[in-house]
């Protein structure tokens, strides 16, 4: 098996035009089926399996076994917990289940820190995105809104090929509803139309814009910044903007592909980016940037954390509660990206930004309420204030992306 796997070609998801060629060819039977309101489940499974296999074939064969092991582990946890949850609902069992489901990811993240940056053998491309899906399921099982799960639907949700490697992160109940009912023909035709558009736009984003930004801006700026050296210099500002845009066009392009292929398969995977650089404040930014990740953290970390603190009246002041929750939420997101100072600082900066943002919005609200009572006009809100707000938010996020890029680490330690 291993040798066979090793000799297969390796296709990274959405890597080059040829990949799309094969992918679209494989999709044809699925598309025809869905046009006639039928889902060929067995064919779809084979199709997904083939492309997942090719993601981890060749020199990456170790990851294939890691993936299989990981899925078995998570299925055991999910069904073990479901079995338990039918009878009881103790906090410690729930928390243990959550811990065990995150454990593989924790090990994968910690491993390189103690092994000179070497990857753990239990890691594979997409492990963090799968972990999000599983944790969300466990939480909803505790809330009793997810029950009577069966192995096959859960497996196909976890291993949904288009979004396996880097999201967008879907939710089980939404996905399952899409999957069990083939979309109506008119709806599906709309899917096909938007999928075609998304693939073209994705090509433009990822293979043209991101490619050229990298080649003609990011690499030269990095080069210039490194040769000048020092703590900070002018080309580093160039790196900051170039990297920010590169990250957006690369990742948004990728997300568009994943969404498009999902739609071909009749699944309406949620969008991941919505013009993030037009956000007027940081809170809005997180409703527009890597949305499925941000919403996951909002729903499964932030809101639950706030709820717990509010119910137990941990802090009297709601602003303290919000601040602590933002900090926990964003730091956790930082840690999730990896155990390096720059990812963690990135999380910290965003937490700080959100706290300030929250405070400012509340201030504004209070002022406007007071002005309204006194019969005054509300504080000005026009194209100019909006432009200033967009400008500030844009530059703050660009700066945090510079931190996130790890380039400063390179600049200071090279």
């Amino acid at each position, binding site marked *: 098996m291993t040798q066979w796997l090793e000799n297969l070609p390796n296709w990274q998801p959405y890597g080059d035009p040829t990949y799309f060629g094969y992918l679209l060819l494989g999709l044809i039977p699925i598309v025809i089926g869905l046009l006639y309101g039928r889902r060929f489940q067995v064919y779809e499974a084979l199709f997904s399996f083939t492309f997942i296999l090719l993601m981890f074939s060749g*020199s990456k064969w170790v990851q294939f076994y890691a993936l299989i092991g990981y899925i078995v582990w998570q299925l055991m946890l999910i069904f073990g917990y479901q079995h338990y949850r039918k009878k009881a609902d103790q906090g410690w069992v729930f928390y243990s289940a959550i811990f065990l489901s995150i454990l593989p990811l924790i090990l994968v993240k910690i491993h390189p820190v103690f092994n000179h940056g070497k990857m753990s053998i239990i890691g594979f491309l997409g492990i963090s995105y799968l972990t999000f899906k599983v944790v969300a399921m466990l939480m909803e099982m505790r809330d009793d809104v997810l029950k009577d799960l069966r192995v096959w639907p859960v497996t196909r949700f976890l291993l949904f090929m288009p979004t396996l490697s880097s999201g967008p992160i879907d939710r089980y109940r939404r996905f399952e509803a899409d999957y069990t009912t083939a979309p109506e023909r008119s709806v599906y*035709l709309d899917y096909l139309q938007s999928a*075609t558009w998304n693939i*073209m736009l994705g090509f433009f984003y990822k293979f043209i814009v991101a490619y050229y930004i990298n*080649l003609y801006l990011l*690499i030269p700026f990095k080069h210039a910044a490194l040769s000048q*050296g020092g703590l900070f*210099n002018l080309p580093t500002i160039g790196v900051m903007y170039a990297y920010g845009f590169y990250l957006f066009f690369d990742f948004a392009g990728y997300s568009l592909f994943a969404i498009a292929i999902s739609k071909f398969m009749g699944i309406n995977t949620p969008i991941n980016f919505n013009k993030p650089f037009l956000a007027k404040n940081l809170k809005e930014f997180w409703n527009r940037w890597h949305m499925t990740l941000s919403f996951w953290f909002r729903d499964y970390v932030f809101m639950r954390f706030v709820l717990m603190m509010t119910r137990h009246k941990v802090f009297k002041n709601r602003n303290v509660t919000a601040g602590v929750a933002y900090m926990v939420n964003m730091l956790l997101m930082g840690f999730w990206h990896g155990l390096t100072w720059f990812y963690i600082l990135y999380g910290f900066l965003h937490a700080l930004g959100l706290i300030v943002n929250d405070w400012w919005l509340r201030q504004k609200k209070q002022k406007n309420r007071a002005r309204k009572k006194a019969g005054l006009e509300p504080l000005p809100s026009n194209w100019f204030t909006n432009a200033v707000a967009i400008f500030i938010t844009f530059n703050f996020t660009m700066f945090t992306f510079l931190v996130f890029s790890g380039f400063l680490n390179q600049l200071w330690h090279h």
Partner: protein
Amino acid sequence: MRKRLWLIFGPVICAVALILITILLANPNPKSNYDVEKKAAVATTPQVFKSGVLKRQALSDSDHRFVPFFGSSEWKRMDSMHPSVLAEGYQRSYRPFLIGQAGATSLAQYFGMQQITDQLQDKQAVFVISPQWFVKDAQKQKALPMFYSKAQGLDFLQNQTGTDADRYVARRFVQVNPKDSLTGMMTKVADGKTLSKTDNAKIKSYLHVSNKEDAFFSTWKTADTYDKKIAPKAEKLPQPYNQKVLSQLATKTAQKDTSNNPYHIKNSFYTKRIKSHEAKLAGSQKNFNYVQSREYNDFQAVLNQFAESNTDVMFVIPPVNKKWAEYTGLNEQMYQKSVEKMKFQLSSQGFNQVADLSKNGNKPYYMEDTVHLGWNGWLNFDQHVNRFLTTKQKAPNYKINNQFLDNQWAMYEPKAKDDFSKFK
């Protein structure tokens, strides 16, 4: 439903079909066209570097003799004594085809050469080796993506016969591009396995398409360097050719162009690249080391290619600006050691055409800036190269020694007056 499907997919299908037809109609072996060739020869852009079509078109032109000049950032120092200007101005029997710019080191050159092996066969070439390539970091080859194209990798796979050098290069490729689409086949070559029939068929068909693509886009790949920088300067050269007059002119021009700094560095370079952080650069190169580097192995791969193609090559080793080296603390002894090491690697394998200019860094106006030849340096370069290319040379006789592909050689630190007996 059909109408709707056609509205959705029709435009895409038409566009793809149109693109395919246009590209497949392009001719990958265009007829000689001197206008295109002379522009490509001095464009010094990564696009020309990557374009097999443009390089082959010029180098196989039977009416005009283009000679490949392999090198890096020096080609962009297009002052009035640049070899392309002189060749044009004095209507030499050859024109340099400049291959390489900043960041193009041996491995990039090796892959670039894979596209023109037929054009190198039994011909002459010039190769400028910059000791600055030979840094410790050379193994990472960060600039390679700028110069590498898939067609080069495919040409390599097609050319390779499983020799030690082929395996070495494939191994390096996998190290530098672990995620590339050719990594699988490269790994096979690195492991000494032969490529399967399907592999070879794949290479052939990919290469076919990518050459068509290259041919289609090659029209837009040149730059207007020839009209802007070469032709006007060539026109202004004093006629007829006179070394003394040229040298005086070079010195006079250089004096005027290096007036704002004590290092005899071109004014614009000084203002743009040095002035703002000059103080920080004092002593900054004290620990530079070109003696131990992976680059020596990569360079050997290039030599293997020249030997295989029986190319008669002149190697030029440039100096560094002495005044600048003193300011930045670059160790001259170390520099000379690296030069000795390169020269041994060359001479011991029969590469006897070496123009060692490395000791000329303190000659007046020899360098245009910190590490690049200019004015008088270019004139000196031209004397060596012109003689080499325009007089009859003995046929080369190369004896390749694969020890130079070993890490042991890369890391070898020569002693003073070393005779390198270990590697003979």
